């Protein structure tokens, strides 16, 4: 078991810097999810920890050891790849035992560990099959089994669920979480799926364009997003952003309506309100010209624009609502759930 420290980490290909001065401390046994849109550098960061990409500058330590120059095999890590990367010509058993065999571990010990991992993952009856005879979910388990038998200090997951269908993904997500809690191994998990990130991670590192936008617990990110990017990325459906003017504790929206809040700012700001925080209220300040309803069963998503402007806005209402298209519905939101961001920098303005 080990902690991981990233200090001033930079990755550049030639003159193009793709990761900019990443800082992060990961505690022993923690489950960290790195999340961000495609091309944000999250996989590169993970591969640097794994040792598959070189470090341009900065420092990565696993435990107390700086591992910048170590081969992947010497870092005491195990990695699960997106396409599983199982050796197609070896049986499941051989796949799992290969790393141990290279480390010259005694045969009886290898057998014991493979058996044990197979029991944990319930793949005992497939041990003598070839990977191509297995379904996607089973291959996924074998890939995890290969990681477990090594008994590493760190697990690295590179979008391991993206090749599975939606139902299996939810199921495997839970299993990965349970497994990690049971084994207590420090883990880094890369995904672009914010639901996966929210449900799996002890803490989330949100990356955008090679910068860390925010690094915190899922609830912190949801309740107090540090930037517009995080606010828009975390939560589904994503947050509404309304341009506003702040003055003396009052926010004036584009159509002249006023909402109280934003006491610590003056000038152009962006007001963020999550769809689930908009409450239907006949006397509310926010009027929405309704364009369409989306029925989700448990609740209804109302799509429209802020009355008198063309700022798109989404509200989530409990139960079934289906009448009122074309009309204006009024909403209010409590001051405590309003998020105010600086319009120019996109940074959060604390209340």
């Amino acid at each position, binding site marked *: 078991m080990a902690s991981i420290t990233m200090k001033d980490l930079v990755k550049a290909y030639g003159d193009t810097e793709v990761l900019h001065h990443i800082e992060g401390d990961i505690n022993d046994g923690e489950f960290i999810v790195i999340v961000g849109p495609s091309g944000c550098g999250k996989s590169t960061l993970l591969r640097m920890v*794994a*040792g*598959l990409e070189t470090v341009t500058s900065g420092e990565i330590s696993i435990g107390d050891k700086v591992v910048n120059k170590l*081969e*992947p*095999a010497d870092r005491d*890590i*195990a*990695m699960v*790849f*997106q*396409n599983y*990367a199982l*050796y*197609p*010509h070896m049986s499941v058993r051989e796949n799992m035992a*290969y*790393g141990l065999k*290279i*480390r010259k571990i005694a045969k009886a010990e290898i057998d014991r560990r493979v058996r044990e991992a197979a029991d944990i993952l319930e793949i005992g009856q497939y041990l003598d099959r070839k990977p*191509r005879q297995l379904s996607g979910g089973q291959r996924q388990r074998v890939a995890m089994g290969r990681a477990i038998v090594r008994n590493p200090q760190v697990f690295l997951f590179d979008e391991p669920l993206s090749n599975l269908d939606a139902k299996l993904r939810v199921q495997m997500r839970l299993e990965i979480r349970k497994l990690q809690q049971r084994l207590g191994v420090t883990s880094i998990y890369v995904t672009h799926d914010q639901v996966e990130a929210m449900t799996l991670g002890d803490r989330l590192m949100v990356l955008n364009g090679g910068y860390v936008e925010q690094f915190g617990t899922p609830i912190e990110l949801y309740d107090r997003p540090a930037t517009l990017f995080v606010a828009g990325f975390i939560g589904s459906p994503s947050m509404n952003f309304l341009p506003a003017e702040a003055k003396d504790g009052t926010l004036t929206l584009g159509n002249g309506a006023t909402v109280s809040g934003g006491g610590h700012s003056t000038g152009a700001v962006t007001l963020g309100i999550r769809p689930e925080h908009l409450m239907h209220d006949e006397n509310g300040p926010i009027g929405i010209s309704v364009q369409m309803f989306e029925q989700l069963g448990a609740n209804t998503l109302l799509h429209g624009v802020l009355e008198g402007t063309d700022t798109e806005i989404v509200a989530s209402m409990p139960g079934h609502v289906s009448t009122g298209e074309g009309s204006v519905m009024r909403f209010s939101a409590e001051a405590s759930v309003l998020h105010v961001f600086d319009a120019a920098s996109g940074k959060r303005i604390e209340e």
Partner: protein
Amino acid sequence: MIENRPILNMISHAVLILGVVIVALPIWITFVAATHDPVRMTQAPIPMLPGGYFWENFTQTLFGGGLSGTESAPVWRMLLNSMMMALMISFGKIAISLLSAFAIVYFKFPFRMGFFWLIFITLMLPVEVRILPTFQVIADLGMLNSYWGLSIPLIASATATFMFRQVFLTIPDEMLESARIDGAGPLRFFWDILIPLSRTNIAALFVILFIYGWNQYLWPLLITTETDMTTIVMSIKQMLEAAEQSPQWNIIMMTALLAMIPPVFVVVAMQRLFVQGLTETDK
């Protein structure tokens, strides 16, 4: 295409049978000629049905002096020479091109693409083009009349290197990364992962290269002067011109028949792997 039309079936069968006859007729004549006595083979018309001399011709060809009145080696010796040459060429080519493709695909070194193109350019230099300098080199190395001399100049292979390069490029990078995390060094990765994954391609290439080696004519003719080192393909031609007598067709045809057997055996034995190697894409 699955169509249920009797006329079409009959026509396609007729075409197929015609094709088989055209391909098989020369082989049938070879076989028939190998079963008659020498006198019968000089009379017109040539026989179309087997005669009764198969075993006599067989033993005389394989163990006797071959053609009577000449000093050629017995055919079993030529078969052995050809076999050694073909095997050395095919194993040598496979080993060298596997290693060079491995280097080109998986290692970053200066002038990597330069080396690749150098190898590739040798495609334009078959044995016939470089035959004089190659002969000089082999003669200076004292390799005339030896198995080394027969096979080494033919071992370097751009085609096979190129093919293995393409095979290696289809193997996903994650396989290498996963092996690195498992602690496999480059040679270990080569042996444990790359070779098993290119197994079918190796088999397909072996078939092609074995036949290529077996059918070598010009080069063995050039560097073997002792009758003990002649290969079977070149000796068939020599038999035709041997002595100042009319060709002994029964013996020549028996030799041709014997020369056909090893390549046919290799193709039949490796047919399944051969087809897989050329068509399989699943990695």
